[in-house]
């Protein structure tokens, strides 16, 4: 329970929730021991949120890299089922998510809609997980005696700066498209509204998503941005807010190892345009294979 509403009730003292980060399927506190105070619009303390450090990020990338082989090697059908399971788990805990959205400033109606859309989005991409390959692959009619085909493969480890303005639906969207296609990721939660992300990590943990596939950090963007953009073992970086300076920095720093910089500027995650298999293909590589045809 968030701290603001949970100090006391009539009968007993409530247990307050500790907001932790999520790395490699575990819930550590930040190794730095630092935190920031998250307050509601009324100035109530909502929680002490971990200020993840560069080392936390490094550990998270390590966990994501470690999980990549297993996750990308799972069958698409299996990934589809796991995404569906995520949707189920979110549905089951929708009350908590609504409550957290509300104390972070949403109206009950808005919160209700965002949670519902988030669940539906997971189900939507669960459906795509074993279909996008068929939409985007091709058999190429080369002129020589070869069988030639092109398929998509996950880009690898994706660093995600979760949308600041859509702390649950945006978060769920970018994570879903990333893992539906077999990538693993390290996500930095919305700085101003991190509660949904932390709680969503618990949903992930209670689904069948293997540890390390999704890693969720909380903390300051400014502090961690360079870590996200410069890490040499991150293959792609996703950003979906509008700060042009950040966008330039991401694009510029991505040259360190030719990261794929995927920018969704001005995206409204509740719009119809925010739902499409092309988001999955954005974090995919295209592989073409040739083989002779002979006897």
């Amino acid at each position, binding site marked *: 329970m968030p701290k603001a509403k949970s100090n006391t009730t009539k009968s007993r003292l409530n247990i307050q929730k500790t907001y932790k980060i999520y790395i490699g399927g575990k819930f550590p506190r930040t190794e730095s021991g630092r935190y920031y105070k998250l307050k509601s619009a009324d100035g109530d303390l909502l929680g002490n949120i971990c200020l993840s450090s560069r080392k936390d990020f490094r550990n998270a990338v390590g966990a994501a890299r470690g999980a990549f082989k297993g996750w990308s090697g799972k069958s698409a059908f299996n990934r589809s089922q796991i995404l569906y399971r995520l949707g189920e788990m979110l549905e089951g805990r929708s009350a908590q998510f609504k409550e957290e959205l509300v104390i972070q400033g949403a109206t009950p109606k808005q919160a209700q809609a965002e949670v519902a859309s988030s669940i539906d989005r997971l189900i939507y991409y669960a459906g795509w997980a074993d279909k996008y390959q068929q939409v985007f692959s091709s058999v190429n009619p080369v002129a*020589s*005696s*070869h069988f030639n085909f092109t398929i998509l493969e996950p880009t690898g480890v994706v660093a995600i700066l979760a949308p600041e303005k859509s702390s649950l639906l945006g978060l769920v969207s970018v994570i879903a498209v990333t893992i539906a296609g077999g990538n693993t990721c390290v996500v930095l939660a919305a700085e101003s509204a991190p509660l949904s992300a932390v709680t969503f990590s618990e949903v992930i943990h209670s689904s069948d998503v293997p540890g390390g596939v999704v890693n969720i950090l909380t903390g300051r963007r400014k502090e961690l941005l360079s870590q996200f953009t410069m890490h040499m073992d991150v293959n792609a970086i996703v950003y979906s807010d509008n700060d042009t300076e950040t966008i330039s920095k991401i694009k510029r720093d991505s040259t360190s190892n030719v990261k794929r910089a995927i920018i969704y500027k001005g995206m409204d995650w509740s719009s119809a345009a925010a739902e499409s298999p092309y988001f999955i293909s954005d974090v995919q590589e295209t592989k073409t294979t040739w083989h*002779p*045809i*002979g*006897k």
Partner: protein
Amino acid sequence: MSATLTLDIPDFRNSPRVDEVGIEERVSRFTKRSIKTEAKNTGLRLILSMIDLTTLEGKDTEGKVRQLCYKARHLHDSMEGIPKVAAVCVYPSLVRIAKKELEGSGINVAAVATAFPSGQAPKAVKLADTKFAVKEGADEVDMVISRGKFLEGDYKFVFNEIGAVKEACGEAHLKVILETGELSTLDNIRRASDIALYAGADFIKTSTGKISPAATMQVTLVMLEAIRDYYYATGKMVGMKPAGGIAKSKLALHYLVMLKETLGNAWMTSKWFRFGASSLANDVLMQLAKQEYGNYQSMDYFSLD
């Protein structure tokens, strides 16, 4: 035969695999070599010297063989410096005639034997056929392998049969015809080549000329590569004879290129390479005449035997 006893006999089921498209690509590179002027002139003469002038028909007569033998010795007397062909290739019953006609010419007589072209006869008949040809004076024996047995997977039978024919040949050189047109795949052709090589063939040969397709560059390349591997493994050289379907000098030059770039210079003589062909010689002569006189030639000026 005792020589083969000291060899490691490979398991022919494990013969190297061949990729057909890769073979096609390599062959296409050979055909893109441009053979001009001096290289062409030398090459054409080399081709003539490698020809086994062949007549293998039911209607062959002594007269026909005599004419062919004369042609073998006198390819085109109106031009100077034309080499003789390597051999004349006939049925065993006509070996004696050919031998007599070619006496003192240095041209070998080759006889097809072992129930040519099908090879469908008992071993005893095949050996008798071989011995007869050798007794009649054949310098070279062109045998056929038992393709049926090969396709049944009875490699031991095929191997032993070649060994027995080799023994029956005595001093005569043994060319082993795989009849590649019946073996269907390049993998099979490679495997049959290996069997023949390890069983003691002096030459391996593509075809009888009675089955289509006969020699192709693709098939010949696979066989040349088998010869190369055998040489790598044993240090022994074995000859190669593509037969049937090589009628034009341009194609024959492509074969020479392939030979040169696969086995190298040591194989570039009639001792190690032959063309089994009946009409190739005239086309080569026409080309040589064109080289010499500068104008394109007509078949009317070259004897048909």
